[in-house]
């Protein structure tokens, strides 16, 4: 039974010698060696395996895992997993704590998983992925008669989709996902009159896709909730597809999703396609995506010249960039002294660094007044030596229609429209939160206090005492007026 010949103490070899020995093992041998013990697994993990791919095929009869290697991917090892006990003499293998029976024929391994095909398939794939340090290249489902495919879907979550979902849990999760290496990834956006569609493609050969479809309707059924850049949206998942329901705020939610993807996976939008057929609202979307590598516009009928001009002007600029942030500090201050307050505010929303720069400038006398009405909030920024320069922000609850720009204040993205010295902001779903975000941003950036004076105006002669008490207790103020009378 056991040989009396002295054992070869492989694990006592010097590292280079050990590596040299293991370099003579083929994939199957390395796999078997890795199942011997944790230490062996660690040794195999530390080896260089060259180019490798793991492909999984699932159908109603069996699960098949193929490990392909070699510079031209010609060497294959097939693992076939059957949902039956098998017959004959078998070897036993322990994978992630599960002992399974297996039989080897050249380049083929048959594994018999009585009672736990999905779990054993997952154990095998996890072991291969971990040991050979490559992700699953393709996962193929043959759906004919494959009734229990859902059991397998749970075993092989889409990595991009999982990372995306994980990144939406909290800022910390987002930072973790951002710090990961994602390999080759592309983000493509398709916009047409029916729905925007965002595709995230990944893998070395860009075979793996996750599709996000955004609908301008509330949707039905049981939904998950997802928070993207401060916007909570409803979604449902079908394998590889995510349907997002944006009742009334399609452009804002599309922008929030794309911004989140671009930021999290650290890649720009690869292609942006406009299907202009019956797409009358395309200008709403143009300002959402000012930057992309390839811009594709198509329409069955000729495209209007003004539409092309509008998209070109608002999206990509061919002029070389002026490296503003590389200027010496005095020169930078000099440049920014030419910006009015609205320009400074716009710059401060570009990035944290820009906000810090704007904060460090001197803005002269600046006051911020906030007026609150039913359904409308008015924020006025007053500046100039004689306090005669005004910038007014009107915040509305209603979403409004037309061409809007987007701004992000303290993590909240809002729609806005600018006219001379007046900015209209549409905060569907969060007037109070958006007002606070704007005021906080202004107070912080321009370093002014706004809550020194409270003035209440009413058409009726008397205020309910409890309202006055409530405001007095909850607002910090220096002077309190009711209908112009100092209290």
């Amino acid at each position, binding site marked *: 039974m056991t040989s009396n010949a002295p054992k070869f103490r492989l694990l006592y070899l010097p590292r280079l010698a050990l590596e040299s020995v293991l370099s003579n093992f083929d994939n199957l041998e390395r796999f078997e060696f890795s199942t011997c013990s944790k230490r062996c697994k660690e040794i195999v993990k530390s080896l260089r395996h060259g180019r490798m791919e793991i492909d999984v095929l699932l159908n109603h009869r069996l699960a098949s895992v193929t490990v392909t290697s070699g510079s031209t991917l010609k060497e294959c090892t097939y693992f076939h997993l059957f949902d039956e006990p098998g017959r004959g003499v078998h070897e036993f293998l322990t994978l992630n704590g599960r002992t399974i029976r297996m039989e080897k024929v050249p380049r083929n391994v048959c594994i018999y998983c009585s009672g736990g095909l999905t779990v054993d398939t997952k154990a095998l794939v996890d072991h291969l992925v971990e040991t050979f340090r490559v992700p699953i290249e393709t996962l193929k489902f043959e759906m004919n008669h494959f009734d229990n495919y859902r059991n397998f879907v749970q075993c092989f979550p889409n990595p991009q989709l999982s990372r995306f979902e994980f990144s939406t849990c909290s800022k910390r999760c987002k930072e973790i996902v951002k710090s990961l290496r994602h390999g080759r990834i592309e983000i493509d956006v398709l916009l047409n009159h029916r729905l925007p569609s965002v595709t995230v493609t990944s893998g070395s050969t860009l075979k793996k896709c996750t599709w996000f479809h955004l609908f301008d309707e509330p949707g039905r059924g049981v939904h998950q909730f997802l928070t993207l850049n401060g916007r909570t949206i409803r979604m449902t998942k079908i394998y590889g597809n995510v349907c997002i329901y944006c009742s009334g705020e399609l452009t804002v939610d599309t922008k929030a999703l794309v911004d989140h993807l671009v930021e999290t996976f650290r890649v720009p939008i690869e292609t942006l396609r406009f299907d202009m057929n019956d797409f009358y609202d395309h200008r709403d979307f143009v300002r959402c995506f000012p930057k992309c590598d390839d811009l594709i516009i198509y329409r069955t009928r000729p495209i209007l010249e003004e539409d092309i001009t509008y998209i070109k002007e608002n999206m990509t600029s061919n002029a070389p*960039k*002026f490296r503003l942030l*590389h200027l010496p500090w005095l020169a930078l201050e000099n440049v920014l002294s*030419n910006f009015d307050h609205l320009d400074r505010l716009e710059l401060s929303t*570009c990035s944290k*660094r820009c906000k810090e720069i704007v904060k460090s400038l001197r803005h*002269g006398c600046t006051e911020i007044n906030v007026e609150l009405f039913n359904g409308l909030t008015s924020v006025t920024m007053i500046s*100039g030596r004689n306090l005669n320069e005004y910038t007014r922000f009107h915040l509305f609850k209603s979403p409004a229609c037309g061409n809007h720009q987007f701004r992000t204040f303290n993590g909240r993205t809002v729609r806005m429209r*600018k006219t001379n010295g007046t900015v209209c902001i549409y905060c569907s779903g969060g007037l109070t939160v958006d007002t606070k975000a704007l005021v906080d941003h202004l107070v912080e950036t321009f370093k002014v206090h706004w809550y020194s004076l409270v003035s209440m105006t009413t058409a009726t002669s008397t205020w309910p005492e409890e309202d006055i008490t409530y405001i007095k207790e909850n607002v910090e103020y220096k002077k309190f007026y009711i209908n112009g009378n100092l209290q």
Partner: protein
Amino acid sequence: MSVEPEVPIVQVEEVRENPVLYKIISSDNHVFTISEHAVKLSKTLWDLITNLGLTAENALDNPIPVENVNGKNMETIVQFCERHKYDEEEPEYTNYIREFVLPEWDRQLLSIDNEELFQLILATNYLDIQKLMDYCCRVIGDMAKDKTPEELRIIYGIPTDAEDDALERSASDSPGPSG
């Protein structure tokens, strides 16, 4: 000390009327002549001339080397200084937002591409020519008029927070100077 480089001397039309001339050599060895009134607009050059003790007699024999400015920028600077040498000194601005009209001649002069303009500002900053700096900065400031933050990012090449963070991380990860 006398330097006679084998390069063409660039003559600017306006300089001929002034008897006191100075020679300036750019980093790429182009020689420019500039009048005394014009050179006074550059605080750096005028301090240098004063400290070197250059006078009307020996000025042309002692060219001033300016290593940080190339010939193209120096030509623009000389043209600008000659154009504005008799301008009255402007009062220092007190408002925090600048309000002045950029003359058309200067706008034309500064109609150059962004990278050239960037280099010109660096040169102006080095030579300390306040008026040219104000004008250049006005041209840059005008680029931002009525632009959205996304457009500002494109025009000014402003990196996003994510790019900034990545840069910061890579800077902190890289080994510092040893010893």
